[in-house]
């Protein structure tokens, strides 16, 4: 969290509102490509929030006189549009807002890799696109640590709110600015020719890519077709705080949606905080990981022992053969 946001905003945010967190993560297909560098965590003034759940139905052939065509269901997509304002009380805050917008703007561009082409006398540098960016987005109980793509970014300056004009500060103003950025005069005292807006309006479009089963029944709810498929004792799509989930959403024994690797479990734990069930999951994951390692170790030891036995038998056979040859020679 940046300290350059106004203390009032930080105070309000920390006590009442959740920050918007957008964190780039590695391509699930190519985790070796790295996590990416976009890491946005900021208190924003939400001005619009809209979510669209679109079911893909395709109509089949229409025969003459039939009331309806056949409809084929293909899945349900979830998209969201999020608009927020970034106000600035100081030049520092305005700069910080611009910096954060620069971070977010890069989210809709691809990831590029630098490579060097050796063309004899001089090496030529070039870039190649390695794919799009993957994100984890968290925004309170509305977007809860979901995997998503950012499909649109709009940056607007609100001219009616004004900008921080350039002015040479007095000695007293300079002194106060040195004490803390929030005490600086509301003017651009350093950089003529730069526009520092007092308000920026941003719109983000998001396409969700859920990494858990969606629907009713499914492999996590065997024999329970009216229960929600995720089986994690939490609501979908939006969180509902301290009240219990409805019975059809509650966790049942059997398979539950879990992270596949220990790293994923720890990551989920870090996001969701302290919870007995998650602790149970972590411990189960650690136990499973330990059991797997022990199994691997035992297999290795067994293989080593087998190899050693084979080698020692071969050595004994060779020694016996040598002894036989020597004794035959002596005879």
């Amino acid at each position, binding site marked *: 969290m940046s300290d350059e946001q106004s203390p009032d905003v930080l105070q309000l945010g920390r006590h*009442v509102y959740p920050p918007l967190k957008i964190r780039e993560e590695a391509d699930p297909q190519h985790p070796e490509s790295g996590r990416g560098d976009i890491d946005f965590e900021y208190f924003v003034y939400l001005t619009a929030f809209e979510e669209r759940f*679109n079911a893909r139905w395709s109509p089949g052939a229409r025969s003459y*006189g039939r009331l309806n065509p056949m409809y084929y*269901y293909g899945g349900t997509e979830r998209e969201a549009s999020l608009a927020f304002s970034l106000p600035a009380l100081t030049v520092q805050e305005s700069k910080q807002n611009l910096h954060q917008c620069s971070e977010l703007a890069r989210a809709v561009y691809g990831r590029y890799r630098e490579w060097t082409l050796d063309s004899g006398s001089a090496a030529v540098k070039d870039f190649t696109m390695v794919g799009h960016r993957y994100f984890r987005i968290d925004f309170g*109980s509305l977007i809860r640590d979901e995997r998503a793509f950012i499909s649109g970014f709009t940056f607007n300056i609100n001219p009616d709110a004004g900008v921080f004009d350039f002015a040479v500060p007095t000695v007293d103003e300079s002194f106060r600015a040195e004490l803390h950025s929030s005490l600086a005069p509301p003017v651009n005292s350093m950089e003529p020719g730069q526009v520092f807006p007092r308000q920026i309006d941003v719109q983000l479009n998001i396409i969700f890519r859920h990494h858990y089963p969606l629907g009713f029944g*499914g492999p996590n709810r065997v024999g329970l077709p*009216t229960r929600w498929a995720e089986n994690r*004792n*939490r609501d979908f799509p939006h969180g509902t705080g301290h009240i219990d989930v409805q019975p*059809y959403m509650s966790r049942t024994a059997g398979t539950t949606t879990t992270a596949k690797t220990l790293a994923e479990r720890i990551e989920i734990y870090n996001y969701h905080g302290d919870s007995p069930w998650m602790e149970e999951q972590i411990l189960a994951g650690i136990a499973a990981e330990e059991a797997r390692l022990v199994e691997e170790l035992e297999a290795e030891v067994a293989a080593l022992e087998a190899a050693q036995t084979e080698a020692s038998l071969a050595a004994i056979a060779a020694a016996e053969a040598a002894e036989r040859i020597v004794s035959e020679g002596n005879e």
Partner: protein
Amino acid sequence: MASLTSGIDSSLDAFASEQGYYIKFTHQPTGHSVRFPATIQSFSDIHTPEFSKMYGADAMDPTIILNSTDRKLNFSFTVLNSSLDEARYNRQCVNLLIQMLYPLLDDEGLIIASPYITIEAMNLINSATNTRGILCIVNNINYTMNLDSGIISSNKGISALNCSGKEIYPISLDINIDATAVLERDARSNSFLPRNYPSYGGQ
């Protein structure tokens, strides 16, 4: 089988109950249902015939052939929250409505039943042959927070996994539904389309 009613015990619910103003959604594959007070903001019911034309050699006008008629419903309603507890419960109702767009899965995770939804809304969306409403395919649900009306927030932290941070609830929330009616033929009826279809009521 879940059966929820949004805004229960609120003054809005009391009025809706007295007047019978409700919109009810029933997920066909599971039987889950959710009911909202009918705070309808817009409503349209569009019946669109699909024609094909055949042209003859000596005829100026084409021969018109009616192939079928589509019925598309579009309506929006508002969900109102007056307290944190009500907002949480109403969100569970809206969550169930959104979940109805998802199908029934088998034990392998394959789709075995598509998410058909029966919608009932007083005499506006009402079956001509029974009292169960109209079977629909819901193409999309739009969820829009009216932030100008204010929000209800809670800073009480995390309760197990049910939230990953602080809660935000709008005081007013618009839900827009875009659906296509799947016209059912009543096997017991002699007429193809009943005389009272589409059953808006009135004389």
